[in-house]
């Protein structure tokens, strides 16, 4: 396998990891207009709980379930008790979710300690396969597969199911949805919880890929996810996926050819998009 193909595949794998984080953020943000600054902290909680359960039971599936459930519950509680009074009030939402971020991140330090923890890949997904005569890690293929599944699944949910219809309608005119006999608040709470659950699900998948966890992991990934959303076009779910792959590939290439600048390239890419096309590559001007 040529170097280029290898780098591209790695880039896609990284992009899918970022997408897994971004998808929940864009759901909550794009559909409900809530920019959740605690999204990364929920991600981190998912990763840590997944790590703990994996360590205790040795079952990666249980780890995924537990991690996802953690995010779901956190999201539900957050919407119900904190966000709900502040729909439509962006400044309060920003300030409030930042506060939740602080508390949740500090909480991780209290429960799991402030140090770096190792997160191993499950045995089944260790090792490499040969693609075009070159070795490629199985776990990255697994990541790409999971990312693709989530992409298809969420797309199906939004476009084909009644829940999707309710969500899309509820964003435009929650009052009318209520007047049609649907408890739109419950739906919103579920969407919020679902978005948070996706983040923590992505976290458990991402954990072994990163190989280690630390309490700031949430913020870093949240930033990456947000950059991806800005690049792809805010509120555009497919745009986020494309943006994620784009960022993943750019970052992988940079890491290979110009490692000093690899971390800064995301922000630079975002700045470029903002200058040229402030609504994002696939976004609509609102």
């Amino acid at each position: 396998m040529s170097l280029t193909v290898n780098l591209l595949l790695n880039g896609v794998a990284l992009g899918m990891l970022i997408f897994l984080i971004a998808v929940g953020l864009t759901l909550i943000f794009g559909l409900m207009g809530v920019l959740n600054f605690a999204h990364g902290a929920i991600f981190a909680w998912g990763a840590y709980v997944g790590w703990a359960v994996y360590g205790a039971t040795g079952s990666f599936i249980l780890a995924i379930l537990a991690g996802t459930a953690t995010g779901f519950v956190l999201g539900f509680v957050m919407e119900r008790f904190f966000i709900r009074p502040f729909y439509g009030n962006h400044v309060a939402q920003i300030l409030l979710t930042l506060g939740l971020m602080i508390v949740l991140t500090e909480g991780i330090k209290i429960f799991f300690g402030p140090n770096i923890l190792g997160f191993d890949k499950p045995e089944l997904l260790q090792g490499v396969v040969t693609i075009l005569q070159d070795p490629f890690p199985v776990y990255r293929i697994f990541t790409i597969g999971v990312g693709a599944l989530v992409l298809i699944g969420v797309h199906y949910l939004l476009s084909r199911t009644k829940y999707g219809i309710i969500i899309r309608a509820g964003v435009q005119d929650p009052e009318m949805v209520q007047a049609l006999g649907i408890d739109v608040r419950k739906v919103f709470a579920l969407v919020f919880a679902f978005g948070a659950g996706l983040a923590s699900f992505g976290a458990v998948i991402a954990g072994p890929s990163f190989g280690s966890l630390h309490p700031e992991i949430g913020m870093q990934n949240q930033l990456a996810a947000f950059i991806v959303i800005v690049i792809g076009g805010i509120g555009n779910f497919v745009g986020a996926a494309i943006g994620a792959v784009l960022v993943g590939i750019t970052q992988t290439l940079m890491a290979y050819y110009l490692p000093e600048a690899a971390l800064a390239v995301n922000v630079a890419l975002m700045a470029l998009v903002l200058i040229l096309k402030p609504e994002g590559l696939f976004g609509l001007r609102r």
Partner: protein
Amino acid sequence: MRERIFNNKWLLAAVLVLLAILPFVGTSQFLMLMLIQVFILAVYGMSYDLLLGYTGIVSFGHAIFFGTGAYSVGILLTKMENPNLLFVAFLIAIVFSAVVALLLGVLSLRVKDVYFSMITLAFAELFFIVAEKWSSLTGGNDGIPYIRVPELFRERVSLYFIALGFLVVMFLFLRRVVDSPLGRVLQAIRENERRAESLGYNVLQYKLVSIVISGMVAAMAGGMWAVLQRYVSTTVFSLDQTISALLMTIIGGVGTLTGAILGAGVITFANEWLSSLASVHPIFERWLIFFGIIYIVIVMYFPKGIIGTIRDKWARSSERGKRDAAQTDQRGKSVL
């Protein structure tokens, strides 16, 4: 009436006199050091309040300016090898951060308020990375140690008065700004951006002016911080640095410069006190969690912070339920 009590010149003057005589009544070195920190951080907090409280912009990248100021002063003092060129270093730091603020503003004010916060956060991350990686200039993770400063800035009592003077001058400057025609336009933008636009104000330009002024003041605070610590590390660019500006402003009260000063005091002293309790229970090492909780409670239930809430109380009791009951709750607007 109520405005008078808290913006009362006499009350502020009395506090000032109290602070001025403090070094002469045998105060501990430790307390003085704490107060110097409070004075400098208060300026940093006020600069943030100009953005958040007066212009209605939620920036999560305020550390950029603080850090730019700190690093500029640190690097320049180290390179120039003459500590007495401190003022030149400050001047360069201010100009530099004004340029940074302008660029940041032009880039990120193009998008709506919600995205602005996140984008400034991303840029702060960028600055953090640059400070870490460009070690030939910044010293990387080791930072810039042993910054040499003029003798006057080393001696505690004189530094105390310099910091106090710095706070007073900056307070008067910022108060002048918010009360100037420009400041009034900023408040109008905070209240109703589109309407301000339809009055003929170029909103983007005004926001840029706001962020530039705020950035310059924050940079001065950062420079003072470098002088006080005689050491600069990447933490000046960290998210925690931005969060501390946010905490000071919110807890003290947005849109009231005095609130940021009070907030700086509360945070610095409470921080010290909580950290000292770490020997009682390890949870106190994570003192930030307490601030986080207090902060959430304030955002949810006392959105005007300490000063703002007290002001309202005064207003309420002096008007005593005239026609206010139905009108106080403006923040609870909800789409549901």
